């Protein structure tokens, strides 16, 4: 198939790929610094550290390796939680202090909002809740989930709106002030991601007729109408990740045909799409650097007890 490139489409390509062997990195502390730990047989117990990509220096963050770390957009705080659920730690990166919150994480990757709130799902005696953690004060607002919601896979928030994808593949939207009133519901959703401005919603629909998934981008309030044509169709699409400025969407795609799987980038302004790599890992989050010029993908072989080596790959764009 011949590409039909628009003349005004910006050229997005990879300038450099840097690979950090035996290293798992979860997020960016700045455009040159990452939160990482070395994960190999010889260093399985090493704590998370700050890794300087320029000098290669490491500085311990004092966070044990069984936690995973997500840094706030303004890089002042981080949240750490166990992969399989449990304690949630709120870390003040500037002061090097952390507090353990009374809420128990379900182990889902939560989301930072641009005003310093972290939204995640927690386990309570009376079921799952959404917790909105204010990083500045450490206060937590608990929101009971609507009855229709099954076990939560992913949650995001913007302003007073909460978007929840549950295990029965429903994407539900409701207000923090009225969680029992569902604003809209979309079925057969495999993944979603709200742009930083909240103006665009990317989501993936399971098409049971073709056993494929379709990627859409639309205005969040038009989701239920689902009138837009899909951006792409593949066997599996996931790990949707908006750039900090919301002008690009990265995602992973997996297909049974060789050469088509990989990580893609869509320009929100032009719609031009580029395959950045033919390496796809549907379980590896794609994490943008603060300046939107680099993408971080960390992989770990979680399945083999004796071979859990990790690799972090950084894609630098031009």
């Amino acid at each position: 198939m011949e590409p039909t490139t628009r003349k005004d489409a910006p050229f997005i390509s990879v300038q450099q790929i840097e690979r950090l062997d035996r290293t798992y990195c979860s997020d960016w502390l700045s455009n040159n610094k990452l939160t990482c730990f070395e994960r190999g047989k010889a260093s399985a117990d090493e704590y998370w550290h700050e890794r300087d990509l320029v000098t290669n220096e490491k500085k311990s963050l004092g966070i044990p390796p069984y936690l995973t770390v997500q840094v706030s957009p303004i890089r002042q705080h981080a949240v750490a939680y166990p992969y399989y659920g449990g304690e949630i730690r709120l870390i003040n990166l500037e002061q090097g202090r952390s507090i353990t919150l009374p809420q128990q994480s379900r182990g889902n990757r939560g989301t930072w909002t641009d005003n310093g709130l972290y939204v995640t799902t927690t386990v309570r005696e009376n079921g799952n809740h959404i917790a909105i953690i204010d990083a500045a004060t450490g206060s937590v607002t608990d929101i009971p989930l609507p009855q229709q919601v099954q076990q939560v896979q992913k949650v995001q928030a913007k302003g007073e709106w909460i978007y929840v994808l549950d295990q029965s593949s429903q994407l539900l939207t409701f207000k923090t002030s009225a969680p029992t009133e569902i604003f809209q519901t979309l079925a057969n959703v495999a993944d979603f991601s709200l742009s930083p401005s909240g103006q665009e919603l990317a989501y993936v629909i399971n098409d049971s007729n073709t056993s494929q998934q379709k990627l859409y981008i639309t205005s969040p309030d038009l989701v239920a109408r689902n009138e837009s044509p899909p951006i792409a169709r593949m066997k599996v699409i996931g790990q949707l990740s908006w750039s900090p400025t919301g002008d690009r969407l990265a995602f992973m795609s997996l297909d049974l045909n060789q050469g088509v799987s990989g990580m893609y980038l869509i320009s929100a302004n032009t719609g031009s799409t580029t395959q950045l790599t033919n390496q796809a890992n549907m379980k590896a989050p794609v994490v943008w650097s603060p300046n939107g010029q680099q993408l971080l993908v960390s992989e770990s072989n979680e399945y083999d007890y004796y071979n859990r080596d990790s690799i972090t790959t950084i894609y630098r764009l031009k």
Partner: protein
Amino acid sequence: MNIVNEQSKWSKKTARIAIIIGASFVALSLITGCGNDKLTVKQPPAANETGTAANPAEQPTGSEEQNPAKQFELAITEVKEAHEAIELFDKHISKADKKAADSMFLRLEQFYTEQLPSINANLTTIMSQADMQKYIEHGIFNIEKAKQDSAYKEWLLNQEKGKLIWDWADDVFLKVDYAALHKDYANYISADLSSYLAIQANESAEKLMSDGALKITRDELAKRLIDVEQYVTGYPNAQKKAAMLDLYSQYIHEYIHGYRYNAIADETHNDTMKLLPEVKANYEKLVQQHPTSKTAQIVSDYLVVINENKDVIYNQGEPGGSIRGDIKPTIKKFWDQLDVQVNQLFGQ
């Protein structure tokens, strides 16, 4: 991949956008985006394996154009599927001398390390698709049935062609089929790497542990300890020394104190907290059979400590609490110092 190549209204700003993914463009992106000249690799210095092919620039070259190792090294950077890597390996290995074959094998093993995280992540993703749920029987994914599904047959069989083998932990996963590698390539590579492959094939065929429990007998574990020791000491410049010492460390810890749940006389054996006689006899047998080995030296030292404690490993627990109390101080000291002793004996 089906590309939706039409203009669409998909933003609130009603921007009209043409979507432009094309197969030829994709192929171009792969070449320009993933070329070897753009890849920088950083490894933790302490974890570098002797003789690994981590840095292509450090590979033996010889005649650049005809050196099969160099050709393989260049070609494998563009490959993401294990079966393609094996096809490449097969294409070049017959032309390689032992040195080049070793270099190729180490690069192939590095390929597996790089690719297994995504191979297994993607396998899990595929297995979770709605049309694959019919192959889950009693909570376990039936790979053999799934391989009969025309939609997935080629993809699943390609994994096996890549000399990967199915295993099971919490879920089905793929791991390197060292037995297949040993069978097909042992004659091409050096005795050093061939021995390494044999050890890995043995470990792969019957794992030391599964579901957190030991799966092999004490005799088999003793044999594996000696095999690994003979590899490390038998090849002064062993190319996989660090990896084998890692394995040795796992083995010796299990041999000395990993059996504590079925090696100590506790509630089922009169609560003496003593090492069971058959375990002690096994230690003595190893020392007797391999008296000059470093493993025998470690085990002999442990037997001295055991005898000093009259075979008692643990103190009795407190009434109303755990049956088993603290570890005897000198026993604990021996366990804690085990890695230090291994490092001293093997010159790490």
